[in-house]
């Protein structure tokens, strides 16, 4: 006797030919080698994104946007709504872990040079998702409408404003006016819950389809001696089960962080108060913030910030385009220059983040 589940499967299969998809998935293998551990970070990032979607929707049930409502509604969530403190803390913690996991995933792909042909588009969509992730962080940071967020947004949008020619209109577009006001909050809320998730989901779809279609990237040393047989493990169920176990561990870590280190709400934003001492942006912007602090007011003929922003802009663009200028890796040759650049960037980010924390 056929079980109900099998009948269900057959009903769908008869109409949309599920079988071919299942056969395809069954043939996917994950290479096993000394660097296999890095394969898990993409999955962890995906899991954290799912956590963000779920907790984000839950927060939307009570959150109210607006100068007179936002801060109060978060206070309400934290103090009156059952487990509201937990949901909000998880959302804040998972946001930070999401950026961390995405950055680790990105650097592992970079150092393994998995972006090389034929995976350029996977790299591009991944990088765009990372930029969007930073946008999620920046826009979400303002939504509680507290003092720290208010000044972080003032600084962040003002930095956009110093870019020559296009800067000023972009700043006004972001702020919804000349200054950071309730209009800015409305716009950031819209970006955070509608615009960014929409674009992100589209990019994520492309990214995942490409990973499924092209399979996992093999390390370059394995490609260089094709004579040796490669160790692999089936994606389904072996790798997937390991993935799920890790997701469970990550969920536990978030729960511990959210319970023992609940996210602060701080003081309500006041446009007529001085910026508080010890003000810092989110840690993932800290290295750029610290660099701007070190730059003198004037460099050559331009303001220090303009110089810094243009420099970061160019560096980001070159990083995004690495599959297109690293021709050697695409040919399967070793490219040490890419490694040195990568090590320099990691070192710079770590050093300036520490400086930002301690100075």
């Amino acid at each position, binding site marked *: 006797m056929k079980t109900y589940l099998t009948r269900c499967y057959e009903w769908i299969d008869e109409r949309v030919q599920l079988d071919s998809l299942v056969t395809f998935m069954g043939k996917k293998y994950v290479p096993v080698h000394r660097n296999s551990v890095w394969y898990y970070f993409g999955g962890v990032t995906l899991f954290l994104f799912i956590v963000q979607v779920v907790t984000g929707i839950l927060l939307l049930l009570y959150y109210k946007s607006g100068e007179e409502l936002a801060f109060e509604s978060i206070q309400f969530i934290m103090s009156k709504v059952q487990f509201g403190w937990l949901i909000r803390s998880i959302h804040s913690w998972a946001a930070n872990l999401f950026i961390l996991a995405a950055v680790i995933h990105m650097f592992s792909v970079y150092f393994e040079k998995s972006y090389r042909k034929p995976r350029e588009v996977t790299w591009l969509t991944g990088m765009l998702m990372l930029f969007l992730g930073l946008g999620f962080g920046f826009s979400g940071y303002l939504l509680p409408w507290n003092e720290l967020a208010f*000044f972080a947004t*003032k*600084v962040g*949008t*003002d*930095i956009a404003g110093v870019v020559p020619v296009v800067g000023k*209109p972009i700043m*006004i*577009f972001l*702020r*919804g*006016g000349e*200054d*950071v006001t309730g*209009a800015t909050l409305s716009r950031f809320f819209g970006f955070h819950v509608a615009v960014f998730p929409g674009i992100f989901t589209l990019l994520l779809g492309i990214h995942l389809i490409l990973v499924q279609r092209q399979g996992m990237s093999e390390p370059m040393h394995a490609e260089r001696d094709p004579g040796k047989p490669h160790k692999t493990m089936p994606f389904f169920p072996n790798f997937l089960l390991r993935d799920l176990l890790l997701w469970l561990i990550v969920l536990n870590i978030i729960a511990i962080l959210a319970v023992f280190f609940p996210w602060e709400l701080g003081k309500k934003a006041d*446009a*007529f*108060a*001085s*910026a*508080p*001492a*010890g*003000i810092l942006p989110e840690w993932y912007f800290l290295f750029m913030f610290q660099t*701007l*602090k070190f*730059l*003198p*007011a*004037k460099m050559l003929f331009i*303001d*220090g*910030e303009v110089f810094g922003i243009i420099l970061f802009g160019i560096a980001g663009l070159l990083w995004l385009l690495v599959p297109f200028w690293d021709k050697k890796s695409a040919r399967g040759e070793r490219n040490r220059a890419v490694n040195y650049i990568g090590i320099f960037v990691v070192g710079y980010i770590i050093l300036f983040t520490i400086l930002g924390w301690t100075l």
Partner: protein
Amino acid sequence: MINDGRDRFENGKRDFLKYVLGGSLIAWAGSILYPLFAYLKPPKQAEVEVSSVKVGKLSQIDKDSGTIVRFGNKPVILVRTATGDLRAFSATCTHLDCTVQYRKDFGAIWCACHNGRYDLNGRNIAGPPPRPLDEYRVIVQGEEVLISKKS
């Protein structure tokens, strides 16, 4: 010969249609994009035109202190120096738009965001600020302290 003329005629007709269709396509795209971009640009809010604001009584302002005063929708910092002089500047840091504060321990105006400093004449003396703070005029009428824009 006859064919040639006909070709030229046909080509001319084709070009004509190309321009008409291409032109209308651009006009159509424009008629869609223009309202969209115009919508994104926030309308100019009627700025509260303020020429001067009352701050309070002179006796209530401590020596060696600074307060943020609401000037229309801009913050202004009123500093009373240790010697009792009153000075007012725009409180918006010229660096990246943060709001400055008076620091007793430095005897200077300080911005917490990027450690910028201004002396009590509003001049940028340390850190990243590229320009001095805009100065406002302080008027003392009897006991009443007023701040007004410098003309």
